[in-house]
């Protein structure tokens, strides 16, 4: 059997195609457009191309993500929590605390030794603990997104950010720039602020090693570093697959 997991996120739509032996045959990751149905079609097409398959080869479709209703042909739907937990257990079996930070949401999922989900906590009301924070800030710092995480590691000191709200943080970042703080210090201040919010969600389920970070922000090494400091423990990132693909992978696994 061949299964496609489709994760329709607020910023990106991801597809992962798996076979019976849980091998990843193909995947895709494209920006979620205004028309979700069209985005889903394009994402599937791209993943099929990579897998060298056609739609006839897919036996089942599983949808997840905030836009999962935009996959009307899905054979089943699963919640983002289950998708994150299942995907994380597959890529990192020793992960007990899974932290996912997406563009507009973050969540923490506690996974048992058997892979079952024991607890979870969500934050989707405020941009301060989500990837959108980074999006809003890079334009003020005038550094490319790829640079933004790296320069954070060069910071020599911690500059506190008082603002919790992204809107207020924008003004604060502008003030820091005018006060001539170097960009690495400001980058670290922003990463620390997000990590502070995300960690408080994770603490609600309890921190237990291994801690695995997934979702788009897990690509940001500055954020990983801030999370390590904030939690005081090692924080891992999937090594077999891009961290943002884990929930789509989890969705596919759910049907196998």
């Amino acid at each position, binding site marked *: 059997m061949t299964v496609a997991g489709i994760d329709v996120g*607020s910023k990106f739509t991801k597809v992962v195609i798996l076979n019976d032996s849980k091998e990843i045959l193909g995947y895709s990751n494209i920006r979620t457009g*205004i028309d979700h149905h069209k985005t889903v079609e394009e994402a599937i097409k791209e993943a099929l191309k990579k897998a060298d398959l056609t739609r006839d080869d897919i036996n089942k479709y599983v949808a997840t993500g905030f836009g999962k209703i935009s996959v009307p042909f899905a054979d089943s739907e699963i919640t983002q929590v289950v998708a994150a937990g299942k995907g994380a257990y597959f890529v990192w079996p020793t992960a007990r605390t899974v932290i996912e930070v997406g563009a*507009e949401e973050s969540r923490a999922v506690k996974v048992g030794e058997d892979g079952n989900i024991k607890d979870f906590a969500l934050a989707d*009301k*405020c*941009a301060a603990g989500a990837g*959108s*924070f980074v999006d*809003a800030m890079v*334009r*003020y*710092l*005038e550094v490319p997104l790829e640079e933004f995480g790296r320069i954070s590691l060069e910071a020599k000191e911690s500059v506190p950010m008082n603002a*919790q*709200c*992204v*809107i*207020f943080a924008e*003004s604060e970042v*502008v*003030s820091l*720039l*005018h006060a001539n703080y170097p960009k690495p210090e400001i980058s670290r201040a922003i990463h620390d602020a997000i990590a502070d919010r995300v960690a408080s969600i994770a603490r609600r389920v309890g921190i237990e090693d291994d801690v695995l970070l997934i979702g788009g922000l897990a690509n940001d090494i500055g954020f990983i570093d801030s999370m390590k400091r904030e939690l005081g423990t090692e924080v891992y990132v999937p090594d077999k697959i891009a961290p943002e693909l884990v929930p789509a992978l989890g969705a596919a696994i759910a049907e196998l």
Partner: protein
Amino acid sequence: MVTIQESEYWKWPETVWVDESKNWREAEVISCGIDLGSVSSQVVLMLDGELYAYSNLRTGSSSSESVDKALKSVLEKIGDMKMEDIHYIVGTGYGRVSIPFAHKTITEIACHGRGANYIYGPSVRTVLDMGGQDLKAIKIDHRGKVVNFLMNDKCAAGTGRGIEVVADLLSIPITEVGPLSLKVYPDDEPEPVSTTCIVFGKSEILGLIRKGWPKERILAAFFRSVATRVVELLERVGVEPEFAITGGISKNPGVVVRVQDMLGIKALESKYDPQLAGAVGAALFGRALYLKSKK
């Protein structure tokens, strides 16, 4: 340094005013209240506890320069008054520590309570201060003394800054967003914007623009969500009539009308500018402190 090109729809008009019928030389005590807010700064001059002159300007990137400018503009408007003629200066607001020449600083909660008592009269019991970066629900007694308060200063939702962001997004001057939103009120009022967060609200509003919603409908949905948030805060502190609104958003009928209707209580009206409440309260405290020091 960074230059960010942004439209300036958020800019509200500044005012400087003097009561020409009064002569400051006849006053026994000239007190000054300065409310240095995150978005606006007010300077109020009072003659023996009566409003005489004020300025209401936008706070610039430097707090101390903004204070100097606001004070200077009032003195210039009066013409012959000098800084030394002022007996007592009280600073308040978010930037009150940046007023080096203030004799004393007092929290904005206390000043808004006292100022609302002057502006709206002694019957006011609940004051809603809607400012640039925070939202406060204050309960006061008949003398304007604070009995209880609650505030939101962690989140831009429901603040002036949040409204500015939306005004810019829709390219509508800040003074027009409120009246425009009332065009569909109450018969054609849409569901409120579903997200509290302004960052997410921006995405949601962009979605509504793409759907072809007219601007007045989008604004109605946005102000409905602002009003809901404000009413939640008020209900936590407990609304007791009479009720008054101070701060910059009190000039936004899009918020005021919806809040009033949701509460079922009409806010008091005043001949004075409700944005002055903090500075008026500070000036009144200044007068009292000066008289006390003379005893």
